[in-house]
């Protein structure tokens, strides 16, 4: 094995270890961070409330396109009454959690990484340590908890708006009966399907927030380093979302 590739492997192992250790410290810092709910509220606002518009718009159009595509597919078999089931299942189990997570990574994850990375680059984190203020407790943990709380709520909003988008196209435009749309949907969906979507969104919330905070915290303290960390956040978040989505789906089936 050449010297360069050995160093590459060692570096990858080191990064994985740093992330795992950071996750442990983050979890430990979450408990005392709960004593300052104001910091967490501010982060729920940053990650959640300010993503609301993009999530609602995306949910509406995702639902509308589901209504169109679903109708086009189902009318070939004369089964348009199953449109409600098709739209609800795909939104609940896949599109809702995954698309919300991807949008969250782009909208809130990048903001978290660049904010913390810039704090690192401008020595704010070091200054906190000098003043005996733990930056894990005051910077990292509230942002992690804020993302963890915000993403499941955003996902639920995305799914509900998406359902009404699907009904808008399916019922109002395409003429599927409203009673059939809702009653077929309600009779076919079990609580387990809702649980699957909620569990997925909680897992995504934890993983994406961890990635964003970790990348920012360990960014190179330069302008270039913060930029690279932000890019890594988006790439790692997207890949992890899709990978974990498969694992969780397999676990639930």
């Amino acid at each position, binding site marked *: 094995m050449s010297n360069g590739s050995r160093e590459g492997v060692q570096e990858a192992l080191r990064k994985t270890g740093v992330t795992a250790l950071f996750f442990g410290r983050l979890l430990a810092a979450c408990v005392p961070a709960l004593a300052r709910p104001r910091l967490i509220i501010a982060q*729920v606002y940053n990650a959640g409330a300010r993503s609301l518009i993009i999530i609602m718009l995306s949910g509406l159009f995702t639902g509308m396109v589901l209504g169109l595509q679903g109708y086009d597919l189902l009318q070939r078999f004369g*089964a348009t*009454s199953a449109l409600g089931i098709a739209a*609800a299942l795909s939104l*609940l189990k896949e599109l809702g959690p995954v698309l919300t997570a991807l949008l969250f990574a782009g909208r809130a994850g990048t903001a978290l990484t660049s904010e913390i990375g810039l704090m690192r680059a401008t020595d704010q984190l070091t200054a906190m340590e000098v003043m005996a203020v733990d930056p894990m407790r005051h910077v990292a943990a509230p942002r992690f908890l804020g993302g963890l709380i915000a993403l499941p709520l955003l996902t639920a909003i995305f799914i509900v708006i998406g359902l009404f988008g699907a009904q808008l196209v399916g019922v109002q435009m395409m003429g599927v009966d409203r009673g059939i749309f809702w009653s077929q949907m*309600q*009779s*076919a969906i079990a609580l387990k399907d809702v649980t699957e979507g*909620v569990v997925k969104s909680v897992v995504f919330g934890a993983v994406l927030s961890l990635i964003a905070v970790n990348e920012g915290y360990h960014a190179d303290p330069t302008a270039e380093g913060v930029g690279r960390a932000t890019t890594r956040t988006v790439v790692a978040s997207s890949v992890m979302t899709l990978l974990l989505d498969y694992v969780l789906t397999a676990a639930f089936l």
Partner: protein
Amino acid sequence: MRANRSLEIGTGLFVLLGLAALLFLTTQLPSSGMKFGFGTPPGYQVTAEFDNIGDLKVGAPVKMAGVRIGEVTNIGFDTNSERAKVWLNIHKRYNQIPVDSFASIDTEGLLGGQYVSISPGGLTTYLKNGSRIMETQSALVLENLINKFFANFSSKSGSGSQGGSKGPK
């Protein structure tokens, strides 16, 4: 202090919206949850009894000549007649449906949901709140139909030689 206050209001609004969405998903979607219902338009209630309602569900439409005139509001089992009892809400403006009308349970398309279809009778007295549709026809259950077809098929092919080779061993 001002900025802090609007931040808290925004967060509260967002969290409430999210929780309301979660509540909607857990109570309104699954079959096990309780439904608030979307409010049926004003109309009058009639009932009809069927031998078999198949896959008919609450909320399914009631149609006359293919036009939606109401919806199924409740489904129960009548222990006296031992038949399924279906409550229908007919919209107010369709108030001239003859009392001898005929109700049947039809299927929309091949795989579609089922609905109640009403064919008008000839009398000039009309259905009103609380009346009952006497003439009904059950849902067509596809499995029964296939069973009948195969029973018929095998009894016929037992004597002939053509269908015998493909018959049950």
